[in-house]
């Protein structure tokens, strides 16, 4: 027993003997890490490193212990030390964790607008605050590098591609009719409100194996998961009046929108170049329901319906009067339901969806019926597996049933296509600085009875802390334009091969990006009529067809954005150059197509005035002349239109009126009243030509959005 007390007495002093531990914490390159936490695991003993990365602390531990060092953004360092011996000054080197700055991202060809990703070059808000974009998603995308502006047609024309070569995809589902019905020489707006989406990714080529049926580009739109503003909103402008209502509780939310539009007020104020007989009138509604059944699961159901009616006298060089009376009535419905979920700490992710769309155009040209009908049902499943080290592999499949009808000259042509595709793609990080994405997509289309296999490949290498280079290559297939398939079902897929090289540097709210590309077109459809070239863009292709066409597009584009140099001023500049020739359609020889403009420049500035709560934006856009068909010139498509210039401004002001948020906006498009010409058309005798220009020259637009929000107020009964 005595021994026990002796021992106790003997042991006690050593318990309180203090030992000092000191050293320095640095990163792998030897830079000091101030504020690092260094301590003995399981005890309270430790210290924080000073400005030189130096630490020193005392401990009463006397046996072996584990020393640990931690620092934000770095891996925890641990080492066993023996405290019985005296400890020399320690030198601790920490390893940086993978983060957005030290890990490469595969970016060739992609241009993202996102709130969640810090490397994104645009924010969703940029779409609605860009002057000249008219709060239209594709309108804003037209100012991005790689896009070419074609004023008289809708669609995204990317790097030498036509508008039909870009597919618009919402939550993975192809949108059959992303724009309001096409009219002769008038650019139609997109059907979707930019506020529906939380992220946008515009691909200018070399895109993922997850998507197909687009020779040039995909525009990926991701809808928001939840509504933020409970309550009623009213929107009112020169063209339309709408109501929207949002309601959300913990796991569910509903948004409903109804609107009625009539362009009469606008057309009264702004002189039109188009002779309207029935001013465009449209109405529509949409309903969105979102539900979170499990922790990570989200179900979204979206449905919309709209109809429109208009009538115009459009220029028709081939008619005696030079005019043609067009009447269009359109009905359009689109529904999509998607379900996403993830399991096992995010190791498995599911993206799935089904969608149905239906579109009907009742159209008459000078009393003759030209009805159009289309219907698409699609289903899609993608499973992604996250592997160790950030590597992923995904598998997916999709199936579409497409029915089409076209009335021409009293006859109704019908088509049915059952399209299926399967794809697999893997993202591999060889090191944090070098990553690759390898994918393959296989498709089958029943209408032409053919299958294809399209490989896709991209690499990215980090050249510095803020810069990287990327490379993308791939094959892309698309069904021939359905108008050719009515008469010839033995056609093949059209094909494009992309090669893209990209360099970008993003540092301190400044972005520089340059990309160069080469695109090879093969198996393009050629039509042989045995007659002179017919420049009417709305003609029905009745000639014999084959896949003997080909072509190329090559060029480069650059982008510079600076949000830092001047406070509250944000500006960006893009320049795109493309050189392209094709042998396709009725072309007898290879030529630059009419939708190509060699140079596209845009300068966009935005300034936020804090005191006035006003955002001012100005845009200058330049598009060089495009080829047009002149029957009097022996050289095919040699003539060029003049360049197109456009300066537009937009102001939006936030104001609180009786506790409700009101946004006023005003835009002036083509402020210099430039008489832009997009193309020329000739009368059949070749004697007279018509200029095709915008619907109006200088124009303005005003409107407001009121949010009757209950959220901001403190309810009396809460007390």
């Amino acid at each position: 027993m005595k021994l026990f007390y002796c021992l106790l007495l003997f042991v006690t002093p050593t318990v309180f003997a203090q030992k000092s531990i000191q050293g320095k914490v640095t990163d792998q390159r030897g830079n000091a890490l101030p504020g690092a936490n260094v301590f003995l695991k399981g005890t309270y003993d430790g210290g924080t490193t000073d400005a030189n990365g130096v630490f020193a602390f005392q401990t009463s531990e006397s046996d072996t212990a584990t020393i640990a060092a931690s620092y934000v953004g770095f891996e925890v360092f641990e080492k066993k030390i023996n405290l019985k011996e005296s400890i020399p000054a320690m030198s601790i080197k920490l390893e940086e964790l993978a983060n957005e700055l030290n890990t490469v991202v595969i970016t060739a060809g992609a241009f993202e607008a996102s709130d969640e990703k810090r490397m994104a070059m645009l924010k969703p808000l940029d779409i609605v605050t860009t002057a000249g974009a008219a709060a239209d998603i594709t309108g804003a995308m037209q100012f991005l590098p790689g896009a070419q502006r074609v004023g008289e047609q809708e669609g995204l024309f990317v790097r030498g591609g036509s508008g039909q070569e870009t597919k618009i995809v919402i939550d993975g589902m192809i949108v059959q009719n992303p724009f309001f019905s096409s009219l002769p020489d008038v650019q139609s707006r997109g059907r979707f409100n930019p506020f529906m989406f939380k992220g946008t990714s515009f691909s200018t080529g070399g895109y993922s194996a997850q998507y197909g049926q687009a020779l040039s580009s995909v525009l990926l739109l991701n809808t928001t998961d939840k509504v933020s503003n409970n309550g009623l909103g009213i929107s009112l402008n020169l063209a339309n009046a709408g109501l929207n209502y949002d309601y959300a509780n913990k796991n569910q939310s509903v948004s409903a929108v109804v609107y009625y539009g009539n362009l009469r007020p606008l057309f009264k104020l702004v002189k039109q170049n188009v002779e309207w007989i029935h001013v465009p009138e449209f109405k529509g509604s949409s309903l969105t329901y979102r539900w979170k059944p499990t922790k990570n699961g989200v179900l979204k159901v979206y449905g919309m319906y709209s109809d429109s009616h208009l009538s115009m006298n459009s220029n028709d060089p081939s008619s005696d009067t030079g005019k043609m009376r067009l009447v269009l009535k359109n009905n359009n419905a689109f529904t999509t339901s998607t379900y996403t979920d993830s399991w096992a700490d995010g190791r498995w992710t599911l993206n799935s969806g089904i969608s149905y769309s239906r579109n009907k155009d009742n159209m008459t040209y000078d009393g003759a019926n030209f009805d159009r009908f289309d219907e698409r049902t699609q289903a899609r499943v993608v499973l992604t597996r996250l592997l160790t080290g950030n590597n992923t592999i995904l598998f997916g499949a999709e199936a579409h049933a497409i029915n089409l009808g076209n009335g021409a000259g009293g006859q109704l042509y019908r088509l049915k296509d059952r399209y299926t595709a399967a794809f697999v793609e893997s993202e591999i990080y060889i090191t944090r600085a070098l990553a690759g994405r390898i994918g393959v997509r296989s498709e089958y289309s029943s209408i032409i009875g053919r299958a294809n296999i399209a490989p896709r490949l991209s690499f990215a290498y980090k050249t510095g802390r803020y810069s990287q280079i990327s490379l993308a290559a791939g094959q892309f297939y698309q069904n021939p334009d359905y108008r050719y398939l009515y008469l010839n079902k033995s056609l093949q897929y059209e094909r494009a091969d992309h090669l893209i090289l990209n360099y970008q540097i993003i540092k301190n709210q400044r972005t520089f990006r340059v990309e160069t590309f080469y695109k090879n077109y093969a198996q393009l459809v050629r039509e042989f009529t045995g007659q002179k070239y017919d420049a009417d863009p709305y003609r029905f292709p009745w000639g014999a067809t084959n896949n003997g066409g080909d072509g190329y597009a090559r060029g480069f584009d650059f982008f510079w954005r600076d949000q830092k140099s001047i406070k509250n001023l944000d500006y960006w500049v893009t320049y795109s150059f493309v050189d392209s020739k094709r042998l396709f359609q009725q072309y007898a020889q290879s030529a630059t197509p009419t939708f190509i403009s060699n140079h596209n420049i845009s300068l966009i500035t935005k300034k936020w005035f804090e005191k006035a709560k006003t955002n001012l934006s100005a845009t200058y856009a330049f598009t060089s002349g495009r080829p047009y068909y002149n029957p009097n010139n022996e050289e095919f498509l040699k003539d060029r239109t003049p360049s197109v210039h456009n300066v537009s401004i937009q102001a939006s002001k936030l104001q609180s009126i009786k506790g409700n948020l009101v946004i006023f906006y005003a835009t002036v498009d083509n402020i210099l009243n430039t008489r832009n010409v997009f193309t020329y058309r000739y009368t059949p005798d070749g004697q007279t030509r018509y200029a095709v220009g915008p619907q109006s020259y200088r124009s303005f637009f005003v409107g407001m959005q009121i949010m009757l929000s209950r959220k901001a107020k403190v309810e009396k009964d809460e007390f």
Partner: protein
Amino acid sequence: MKKLFTFGLLFVLATSIAWSQNEKYTQAMGDGIKALNGIDRSKPDPKSLVDIANRFERIAAAEPKEWLPKYYAAYANVLLGFVAPTLTEKDQYLDKANALLKDAEGIAGKPNDELEVLKAYQSQIHLAADPMNRWQADGEKFSGYLQSAKSINAENPRIYYLEGSSLFFTPEEYGGGKKVAKPMLEKAQQKFGAFKPETAIHPDWGKMETEWMLSQTN
């Protein structure tokens, strides 16, 4: 007898070690909280905040069954997310706060109003770092967390303090402002009056800030 005595001694020794461990914990936590309260709220010094955050993290590492050290470490990181000079650094601290909060939730094991309140605070500071681009997503999170805090314990005064401060700093154009914030801050003040923390080391912040904001609303 001898055996019993030895047993008794061992028992006393063991419990006293356990007790002194507990006392050491309370003491260390108390010191940390005192240091935290000593920070100048109008101009917090990042260096001392890092030191305090590190202190709580050390306690957390040594006491894996306690959620409070993680809670305070997260709280200090949220404050750092407010004072850090660049967006990248702010986000690093706020991400860290998030990770600590997740750990704390795991340890607490059941829904805890204080953790929900701190999650809301984290979202608020995250929003403040880049309001133009974050108000939508973070605004939702903020109110969501406060809602769930309320459903656990509607008497927690920090819920109303955060709601009030959010209104306080929201521009009038967006339905905020000092006037709008006043009734909510008064409510917070009233709840603070009735609030007693569970122990001396349980969360008890926000009263000072509420009073300062109230003094600005007149």
